[in-house]
């Protein structure tokens, strides 16, 4: 069949305007804003955020068009004709426009997303997209084989509703493994990338079902008989979906992410200050602020200077703990939000426990802020705390003033003791 004939008869082309309309509308109405707020132009984030809402629509489109085209062939009694071409070729020929429309639902938002964020796709950003495209093929195969057995006016809406519901509602239902095995991918944060194992868990069940149906419905009847192909199909499906379930069974709300290599730009020496390339323009001012604050804090005896202060932005959802030599501070976001000094002071005042007594901790922080000449910023941070009222603030100021009136030597002693006390005895300020 030549291309023009194919395109004139395929249902995919008639459905395409509607599908593309939904994709465009979704992008400009919802995705675009999310990208601007969260993606930072980081390619894996751009891909994942653009695709997040489109997966169910793409899969429903693929499976419905697959069933519809298959029904069209069946009603035209293609399969009763003497075989001149391979059945697979016939199936592939009517399926590719269907798969193409489903792919456009995935590709379009990704391309628009990269255009909006003025960023270029990288190799490590593509797995969620490729996974979606592979699963579109699998869904269209499933639809095709269902359409070989069931009339298309029944098959198409039923499989489309099933696929759309199963995938779309997976985000809001427990158990969590449900959402990890149906081919959706959650937003990826800066510094993360999709891990191979998460992709595998997403791909296995659906592809297993497609292969099993293919084995049962088309491929093996002639060589190993109906029963044999049924047994084999059940085995394939059970092992694939079982493997996917085993992988995802213990995952929480989000699948495991791999750490991406983020190119960093560094400046200075002792401390060396590093930020990701995307915030390179802010680096000079960040570095100046970091070194000034550190020099002041050091001379007040608050902390030893680390050899490396690096941005925690590339750590995504799995932050690394600072050591005395390497500090992970949220430099870029802190600088954009105008609270960099607070973050440096918080990193410098290293309580030996995770949860120090809050009142004393605030006293120490405000005292350190005074030493770093950054009282204003730290105070405005305190003011945002709804559980910290005017009276408490006044008491805090009186206590800090009392400490500051002492000689330098005594202040440093008080500071070192307070770090221990805040962790030792909750509720007993010195």
């Amino acid at each position: 069949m030549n291309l023009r004939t194919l395109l004139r008869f395929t249902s995919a082309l008639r459905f395409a305007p509607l599908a593309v309309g939904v994709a465009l509308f979704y992008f400009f109405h919802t995705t675009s804003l999310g990208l601007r707020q969260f993606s930072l132009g980081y390619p894996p984030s751009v891909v994942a955020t653009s695709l997040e809402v489109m997966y169910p629509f793409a899969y429903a489109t693929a499976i419905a068009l697959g069933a519809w085209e298959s029904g069209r062939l069946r009603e035209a009694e293609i399969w009763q004709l003497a075989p001149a071409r391979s059945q697979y070729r016939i199936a592939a020929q009517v399926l590719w426009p269907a798969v193409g429309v489903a792919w456009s639902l995935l590709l379009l938002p990704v391309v628009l997303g990269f255009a909006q964020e003025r960023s270029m796709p990288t190799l490590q950003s593509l797995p969620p997209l490729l996974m979606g495209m592979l699963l579109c093929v699998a869904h269209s195969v499933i639809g095709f084989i269902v359409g070989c057995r069931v009339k298309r006016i029944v098959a198409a809406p039923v499989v489309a509703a099933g696929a759309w519901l199963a995938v779309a509602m997976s985000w809001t239902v427990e158990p969590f493994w449900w959402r990890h095995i149906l081919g959706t991918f959650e937003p990826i944060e800066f510094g993360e990338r999709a891990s191979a194992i998460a992709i595998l868990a997403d791909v296995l069940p659906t592809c297993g079902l497609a292969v099993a149906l293919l084995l049962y419905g088309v491929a093996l009847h002639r060589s190993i008989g109906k029963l044999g192909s049924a047994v084999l199909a059940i085995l394939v499906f059970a092992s694939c979906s079982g493997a996917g379930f085993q992988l995802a069974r213990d995952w929480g709300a989000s699948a495991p992410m791999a750490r991406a290599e983020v190119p960093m730009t560094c400046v200075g020496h002792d401390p060396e200050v590093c930020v990701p390339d995307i915030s390179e323009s802010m680096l000079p001012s960040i570095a100046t602020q970091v070194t000034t604050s550190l020099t002041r804090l050091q001379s007040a005896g608050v902390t030893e200077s680390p050899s490396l202060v690096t941005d925690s932005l590339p750590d995504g959802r799995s932050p690394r703990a600072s050591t005395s030599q390497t500090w992970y501070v949220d430099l870029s976001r802190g600088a954009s939000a105008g609270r960099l000094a607070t973050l440096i002071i918080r990193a410098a005042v290293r309580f030996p426990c995770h949860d120090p007594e809050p009142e004393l901790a605030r006293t120490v922080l405000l005292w350190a802020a005074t030493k770093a000449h950054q009282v204003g910023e730290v105070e405005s941070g305190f003011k945002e705390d709804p559980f910290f009222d005017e009276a408490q603030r006044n008491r805090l100021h009186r206590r800090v003033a009392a400490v500051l009136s002492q000689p330098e030597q005594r202040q440093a002693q008080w500071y070192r003791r307070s770090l221990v006390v805040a962790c030792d005895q909750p509720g007993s300020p010195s």
Partner: protein
Amino acid sequence: MTWWFRARLGHSGLPAGLACLTLLALALHDTSAILPSLTLTSGAPTRLVEFVPIVATTTVGLCLDSRLENAEVSGIRPVRLFDCLLVAFVVAVVCIIGLGIGLMLGSKLAMEMGRDTAFLVGLMLSARTWIGPSASMVPLGWIAAVALAGFRRPNDPYFWTVIAEPLGNPVAALASGAVFGVGLLCLIYRSRKST
């Protein structure tokens, strides 16, 4: 009437479809899910029972498409009248099933199923006049559109959604009756040759 009954799958497809519908309605009568939405950032809370009428619309489509072409075009029997009766019968049975399940299990949502089915069947029949068998996708499209753009706030649907409105809503009831009527008219007056 016997050949019409058998040609329309009255002995096989119709009871099978209605049995599927009953089972689905029993399984889903009180389940909701959050579906992706454009108008609500938190997603549209959708009662899964809204999807069950798809079984009824596809059953109706399947039965009406199963014809004895030559006999029907040339015959003198009032086949269209029979067809209308068939459609009305399906909708009536779904209403009874919905009411039965609703009263038995105390589920208000299941009772809406009859109204939703009347609306979606009417929609499907009207669409068949223009787009032929592809019309069987229209009810699903409507349900998806309601989830996507049908809600002002959670549990506050726009009036045009019809299927998302609560049971006693007069506008929704009137709209489903009207659309069902239009669907039947389309069924009666459509071209004889179309399938």
